């Protein structure tokens, strides 16, 4: 894949969670069948004070949750189209953009579909086989500045982004599993 084939990435620049300039608070993660997880979340104003606080809180909550590579606002009970991702150090990750938060994100290109096993903090006892695009282009807005970004990614980071964008659409991995025997009791607790 080259940048030319998929259009330029107007990336995160020097954005870090610290540039939100507010301390994040750890929030409680809700589990299915909580209704907030099944509702399509609302668009947000990425520059609004509450969006900035929510972004910081998602990062803070993700940080204290072992093995967590992504967390969407509905998972902390907020029906807003905001999520945090960080796949740094994950053995399956190829392209890695570090820790970032996107608002109003949408998939603009998805190719090379591959199956993989997924878990979710909001479905703590199950994992499932889900087919996801392994090459992905996503557009969204950065919280704080509201700057538009276009991320071009692949592999595990692409999977994490699709999982979180699904959360914002009110979908769980359970809605995408491959078949009647594609969910498994979780055996390893991190």
């Amino acid at each position, binding site marked *: 894949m080259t940048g030319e084939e998929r259009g330029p990435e107007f990336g995160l620049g020097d954005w870090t969670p610290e540039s939100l300039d507010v301390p994040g608070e750890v929030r409680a993660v809700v*589990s*299915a*069948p909580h209704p907030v997880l*099944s509702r399509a979340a609302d668009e947000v104003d990425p520059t609004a004070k509450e969006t900035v606080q929510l972004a910081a809180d998602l990062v803070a909550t993700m940080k204290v949750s072992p093995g967590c590579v992504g967390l969407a606002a509905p998972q902390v009970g907020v029906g807003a189209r905001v999520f945090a991702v960080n796949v740094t150090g994950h053995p399956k990750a190829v392209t890695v953009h570090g820790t970032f938060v996107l608002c109003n994100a949408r998939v603009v290109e998805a190719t090379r579909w591959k*199956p993989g096993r997924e878990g979710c903090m909001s*479905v*703590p*006892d*199950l994992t499932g086989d889900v*087919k996801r695009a392994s090459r992905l282009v996503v557009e969204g807005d950065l919280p704080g500045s509201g700057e538009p970004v276009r991320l071009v990614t692949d592999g595990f980071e692409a999977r994490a982004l699709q999982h979180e964008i699904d959360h914002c659409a009110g*979908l*769980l991995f*359970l*809605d*995408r*599993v*491959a*078949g*009647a*025997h*594609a*969910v498994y*009791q979780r055996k390893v607790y991190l």
Partner: protein
Amino acid sequence: MNELAITVIGRDRPGIVADVAEVLARLGANLTDSTMTRLRGHFAMTLICTGPAAAEVEAALASLTAEGQLLATVRAVTPDGDVPPAGEPYVMAVHGSDRMGIVAAMTRVLVDAGGNVTDLSTRLTGALYVVLAEVELPAGVADTLIDRLHRTAAELGVEVTLRPADPDLL
């Protein structure tokens, strides 16, 4: 050639599969299709075998069921072979708070649309109930079926998705 449908269920312990399979092998029963899994601490086996007569298998399994820890049934069935698919393959996923009648209501909607459930599993973890069904649907019914599924799911207070099963052909 006799075809037998055998079910075995009992409190899980190591060795159930080996014990049952050994009995069948000794009789020359050829194990064809089967599912064997642990469900909430019970080990359940559903097997199709070809070979000996049902009575012979029943008698041989008696050594395993004598203590009352395992329950086995053996039934002669007509060897129809593989059934060709009766429609297009779809996967229905249902999840929500556990309550009575979710499987009954959701599968009834599928059947009323001419669908045939070919595989189904359920999981209960905490308050979350999950139903996953593979179903063959007549061509062209999926679009109207999804509306009916949504209505029934809303009455039950659960979520439903229906999507085409996409087999990977390599």
